[in-house]
């Protein structure tokens, strides 16, 4: 008897697709060449459904669901694009931009930023909600990296990669609501962290210029994330 996961069939944007029951809508959509915008999601890290950009509509469910954390079900009818979804995604982006001080023109990640790319994709040139202009400090105490809270969107990719891949759990969250921010160790300067291994994985998974390498000037920070699928593959290999 086969005890592995069962196969389910469903439709995404009217296209019939097959999936293992433990797979998410996002995985299957991508596998079938259907693009769903994401921001907090990163292949290889535990999805959290935080940013809400990957919302999709499922027939029979009133509220849109986050594709990155919703498992497929038999007969599910998924819609990944609609005027309503576009409006929601746009507003989510607006909210992110209004929350901190995202000034692309002086940002190290200008031209290499997931948030900026999405703004371009959605033609977001202006906000309908007012900017909050919070005052956030920059933590440049680490010898190789800089943390600029002004550009953080609280996606927690850094927190997850450090915990799940590097195994150091240097990063965590502090405070709640709009006061929430990422911290290292028990809210100590990054440079004084006893647990940080200096691996830089957090910097490269960061979607914006919040985490960057020192010495990089404006527009010079480019993130490379190839290590993540590679490490995952190697680990799987070892398990087999």
């Amino acid at each position: 008897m086969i005890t592995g996961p069962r196969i389910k069939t469903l439709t995404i944007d009217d296209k019939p697709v097959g999936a293992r029951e433990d797979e998410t809508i996002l995985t299957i959509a991508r596998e079938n060449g259907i693009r769903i915008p994401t921001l907090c999601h990163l292949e290889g890290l535990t999805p959290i459904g935080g940013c809400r950009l990957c919302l999709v509509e499922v027939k029979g469910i009133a509220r849109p669901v986050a594709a990155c954390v919703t498992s497929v079900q038999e007969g599910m009818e998924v819609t990944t694009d609609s005027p309503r979804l576009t409006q929601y995604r746009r507003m989510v982006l607006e909210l992110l931009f209004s929350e901190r001080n995202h000034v692309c023109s002086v940002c190290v990640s200008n031209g290499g930023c997931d948030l900026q790319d999405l703004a371009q994709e959605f033609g977001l040139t202006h906000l309908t909600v007012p900017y909050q202009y919070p005052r956030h400090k920059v933590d440049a105490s680490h010898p190789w990296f800089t943390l600029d809270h002004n550009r953080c969107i609280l996606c927690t990719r850094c927190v997850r990669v450090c915990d799940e891949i590097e195994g150091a759990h240097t990063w965590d969250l502090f405070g709640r609501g709009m006061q929430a921010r990422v911290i290292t160790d028990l809210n100590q300067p990054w440079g004084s962290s006893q647990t940080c291994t200096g691996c830089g994985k957090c910097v490269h998974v960061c979607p914006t210029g919040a985490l960057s390498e020192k010495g990089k000037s404006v527009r010079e920070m480019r993130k490379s994330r190839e290590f993540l699928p590679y490490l995952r593959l190697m680990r799987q290999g070892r398990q087999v």
Partner: protein
Amino acid sequence: MTPPVLLIAYGNPLRGDDGLAAAIASEVSRTLPEETVEILTTVQLLPEHAPSVADRRLVIFVDARAGEKPGTVNLSPVSYPDEAGGGAALTHHFRPAHLLGLASLFGRVPRALLLTVGASEFGYGGPVSASLRSALAAAAGIVAGLSR
């Protein structure tokens, strides 16, 4: 080969409806091929644009106008000197007619038209007013028609 038609869309896209010209230009760029019309978007007209203006078959200036009824599309010929005379100031009050005047230094002065769309919101930030969407489409249609 220089395209026979030049579209100059001017205005500051960071100031509300002032971005209308740029929006019209991007609409036109979707419908017409590069060989037909060259598109120049700029925050303000500058004397340095004069060499690009010379020797075209047609130059179309596109601008959002305060003081005109929002949504009205107006098309008028441009010539130098215009009714306002030679014109004094530089950068901020540099008009299409001025550019046409300077173009004479670099070749044949082309036929030129100014397309304006009445607009009202020129505050910082904010996209082009939703109420101007139909005017935007109409203006883009006119420009495309003229360019063919």
